[in-house]
């Protein structure tokens, strides 16, 4: 055992550091202490190292407690200062599971997480809305004459561009010569503000409107699609931004 200790003390610096440091604090098991003592009796190098460690520790112990720069008492009255924004939210090694300290940090992460989810949900909603307008039954805005090809799903870039173009042209299409100014007004209403859109009964077709049902549903679908795209883009941006911020802080 002693021989083994001798060898390890010289071959492994970590082992030597561990043993000498623990010996300094009287933290070695009796058998380990005995083996170390036996070694120290014959090894000047290790004895010297232990002695130097002892002096080093004495030096550290004699470092005086610094004078307080000020008092840290909390104000007895009034609002306490708001918690400072924590610097980092991720788990560093030493903060494995402290309850108290993580409080402010946790709040920031939670906010970011919520923001991220809002972004994701908005994006999904937007996507659903966008795709919904592409379904058969809702007329495609691009083709005033309902062409089958334009209804087929295209790659998103194309359809985005297309719907943006359509957004511009759809309004122009509205004033069709066959319609009376009053019915145009109604359709325009329905198109621009769904919330207070003209009641369905008004939209409900007079024979002429039925024939020309394209424009109103076009503008509605257009608007829904635009909202969908806006939601999609906004949501993605929001989600990415909150993700980025979470990384940075």
């Amino acid at each position, binding site marked *: 055992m002693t021989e083994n200790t001798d060898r390890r003390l010289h071959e492994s610096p970590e082992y030597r*550091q561990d043993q000498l440091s623990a010996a300094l604090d009287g933290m070695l098991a009796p058998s380990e202490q005995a083996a170390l003592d036996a070694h120290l009796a014959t090894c000047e190098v290790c004895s010297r190292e232990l002695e130097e460690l002892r*002096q080093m*520790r004495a030096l550290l112990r004699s*470092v005086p407690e610094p004078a307080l720069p000020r008092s*840290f008492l909390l104000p*007895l009255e009034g609002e306490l200062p708001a918690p400072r924004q924590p610097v*980092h939210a991720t788990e560093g090694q*030493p903060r494995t599971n*402290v309850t108290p*300290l993580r409080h402010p940090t946790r709040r920031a992460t939670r906010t970011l997480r919520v923001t991220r989810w809002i972004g994701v949900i908005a994006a999904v909603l937007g996507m659903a809305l966008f795709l919904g307008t592409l379904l058969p039954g809702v007329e495609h805005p691009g083709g005033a004459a309902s062409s089958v090809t334009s209804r087929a799903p295209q790659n998103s870039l194309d359809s985005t561009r297309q719907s943006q173009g359509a957004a511009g042209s759809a309004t122009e299409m509205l004033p069709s010569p066959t319609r009376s100014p009053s019915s145009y007004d109604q359709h325009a209403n329905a198109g621009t503000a769904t919330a207070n859109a003209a009641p369905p009964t008004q939209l409900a077709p007079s024979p002429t409107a039925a024939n020309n049902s394209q424009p109103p549903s076009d503008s509605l679908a257009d608007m829904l699609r635009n909202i969908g795209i806006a939601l999609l883009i906004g949501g993605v941006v929001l989600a990415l931004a909150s993700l980025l911020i979470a990384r940075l802080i």
Partner: protein
Amino acid sequence: MSVDGRGTEQERERTLIARGQQGDRAAFNALVEKYQSAAYALALRMLGDPDTAADVTQEAFLSAYRALSAFHGASFRAWLLRIVSNGCYDVFRARGRQPVTSLEAMLEHDDATSSSDSRLPTTMVDPSWNPEEMTLRTETIDAIQTALLRLPPEQRLAVVLCDIQGMPYDEVARIMETPLGTVKSRIARARAQLRLLLTRSGELSSHEQRQDAERPT
């Protein structure tokens, strides 16, 4: 604190905590009064900068007050100092990677000729030297602080708590929330490195006779 006073002191502390948990700031301030020196000292030794240390200390007491209802532990001091050390780690993160100069490289350079550091001059060991009895010079404290800042943060925390603040291993382990074995080895690493750094900067020999302190080349 006398051994006899310990029980009542602990009871007093428990009462203060309980009152603090109910929003009694005066009671909490009694705890601040008791521990602010230790809290600030830890922050200062960890960070090396008085202003930041004061900020971290203040912030730690505010966090502690806010989170006091979550405290059910046995040692308020350990809990508080853990909050302080977490505050220090937040500062490290904010600063980006702590610029730890490669100690390994630095030591390697000088120890290139010997595998161990056994070449340290014998003259540096002076049994009659008793640092406990002397007041440290400012330069010595600065040198110690500089050496501490070269250690990896976990080692620094371990050795500051153990050797500068004089805490037993188990309390260090409680503050660091690390197994005792890990604490032991961090302290051992830290001491080994500090011994070399302080020998190098002359602090471990500077208290001797001048001629003894002459460093062999």
